[in-house]
């Protein structure tokens, strides 16, 4: 198909702050993640900057999601997962002693690939996190604010008590975004948030990400390079590497401003991937 080989258009965005003015939220240093004996990612050095959208792209199995899930310690739920190297969040070692994963997750929210609304009303879905975190004051206002921020308010304001499962897939995903931002996290992680949605819903989610960027730091894993080019300020390309011992692991190949990654990558592997020659 023609489209595969054509260059990807990078959407014009506001000027990025120069490197020295960017503030790092996450700093990964020589980060490696293991599932049992299997090394999933290795040697990742990467800074994620405040109030920018960072996209993580790469072929299947290159550890994109694994990396994303280290950022809110969701990998803790996998019994055999362990981590070496360092990951700092605002200067604090995220995996250091005394750091509570539950506390991490309230600051670093997450939106999943498949919309996963709870089996309750639209209102209760958004209020869930607020309630468990004790943010019960002005609950109605907070729920409304989150739904507005997720561009869902107008569609659901008259049926807040209806089951969330009656919403369309795209609405459910925006509900999940509302749920994540209701608890006022600093970072929101998106794990292929639009891969289960139709193009119109996808576009709604992407517009929403641009809006959310004003208040939140966003990280998005995506298979869709056009999507990365459309939404992201910074793009990290992960590739697959086979080490001498035969282990296949994900490595960070290149990390730069999105424009550069898609128009003038420094690494041949990145170029091959973004132009559709491999992967």
């Amino acid at each position, binding site marked *: 198909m023609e489209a595969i080989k054509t260059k990807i258009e990078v959407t014009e965005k506001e000027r990025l702050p120069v490197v020295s003015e960017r503030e790092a939220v996450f700093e990964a240093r020589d980060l490696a993640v293991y599932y049992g004996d299997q090394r999933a990612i290795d040697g990742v050095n990467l800074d994620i900057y405040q109030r920018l959208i960072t996209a993580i792209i790469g072929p299947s199995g290159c550890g994109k999601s694994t990396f994303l899930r280290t950022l809110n310690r969701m990998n803790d739920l996998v019994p055999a997962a362990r981590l070496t190297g360092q990951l700092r969040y605002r200067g604090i070692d995220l995996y250091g002693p005394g750091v509570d994963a539950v506390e991490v997750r309230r600051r670093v929210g997450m939106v999943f690939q498949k919309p996963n609304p709870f089996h309750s009303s639209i209102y209760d879905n958004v209020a869930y996190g607020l309630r*468990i975190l004790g943010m019960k004051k002005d609950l109605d206002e907070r729920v409304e604010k989150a739904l507005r921020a997720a561009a869902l308010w107008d569609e659901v304001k008259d049926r807040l008590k209806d089951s969330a499962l009656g919403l369309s897939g795209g609405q459910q995903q925006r509900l999940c975004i509302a749920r994540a931002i209701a608890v006022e996290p600093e970072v929101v992680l998106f794990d292929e948030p639009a891969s289960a949605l139709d193009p119109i819903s996808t576009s709604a989610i992407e517009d929403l990400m641009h809006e959310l960027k004003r208040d939140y730091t966003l990280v998005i894993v995506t298979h869709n390079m056009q999507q990365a080019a459309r939404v992201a300020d910074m793009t990290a390309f992960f590739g697959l590497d086979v080490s001498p011992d035969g282990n296949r692991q994900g490595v960070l190949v290149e990390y730069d401003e999105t424009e550069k990654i898609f128009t003038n990558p420094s690494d041949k592997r990145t170029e091959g991937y973004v132009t559709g020659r491999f992967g």
Partner: protein
Amino acid sequence: MDKKSVLERTRGRLDRIGDPALKAITFAAAALAVTVLGLIAFELVRGSRLAFHRFGLGFVTSQTWDAIHNQFGALSLIFGTAVTSILAIAIATPLAIAIALFLTELAPKPVRALLGALVEMLAAIPSVILGLWGILVLGPFVQNQLEPFLNSTLGFLPFFRGPHSGTGILTAILILTIMVVPIVASVTRELFATVPPELREGALALGATRWEMVRGVLLPAARPGIFAAVALGFGRAVGEAMAVLMVIGSQIGIHLSLFAHSDTLAARIAGQYNGSSTNLQTSSLVYLATILLVISLAVNIGAQLLIKPIDRRPRRRRIALDRAFEAQGLSAD
């Protein structure tokens, strides 16, 4: 080759029997199930006609069961059935949910498989063996330990007074609890297992603790199914004859005390049918069976009505529901 010949039948006649045959066989099977239920109901009504002509609906509200004077009534048995099954399911439900939670959410993987198999095995114990165990082990324990303890701690309540004995309502409740727990637990476990992992992750990603996730997400998602599981267990408790017959003491009468002898519909039918001395007594026992069938069907239908309005969209858990209920109306669309 003209167009028509391309579309002409090429396969043999036998190949074409498949579809109508499938339809006929499956329809016959479904019809058989309905027919059997109808025949049973018909037979029960016919068999209880004699008692119905004699006692009418007053049978249901009369306490007497006197074979010598030919006076029969079901109230005391309905009471015994209700008390034993309701209390058994009340004790069993939280226990079963706890077991299911432990098995799906908390236990390490190897423990899950082993313990899960053991719990299911508990359901495989023939009820007569449980009854025997009730007589030999549980009864003496109830008489010598449990009843004195309940009497000394909660004796101010009328439920825990009276002479201690190993046979009676309390022992029957405990035996029924043991029978019902594995049923409810295994169905509930299936339900929890079918709750998508993304839901759990969604809650945890919001900063929920495991308990908050269970309470706020897992239990609500499984709730309609848990209703079904409880109804299933309740139906089992209501209908259990043998184990109850062996431990309940087979006495007519309505007592507040849980230590008292009592009897249930199912146990009375099983216990007296063969030794029945008059046609009227036999007919009265069939009348009891009719009442039992009505109660069981009512529980079943009531549970389905409870579930249906809630169970509109989520499809996955219907699989477990179907398994639990073998209901035709709940098919995943």
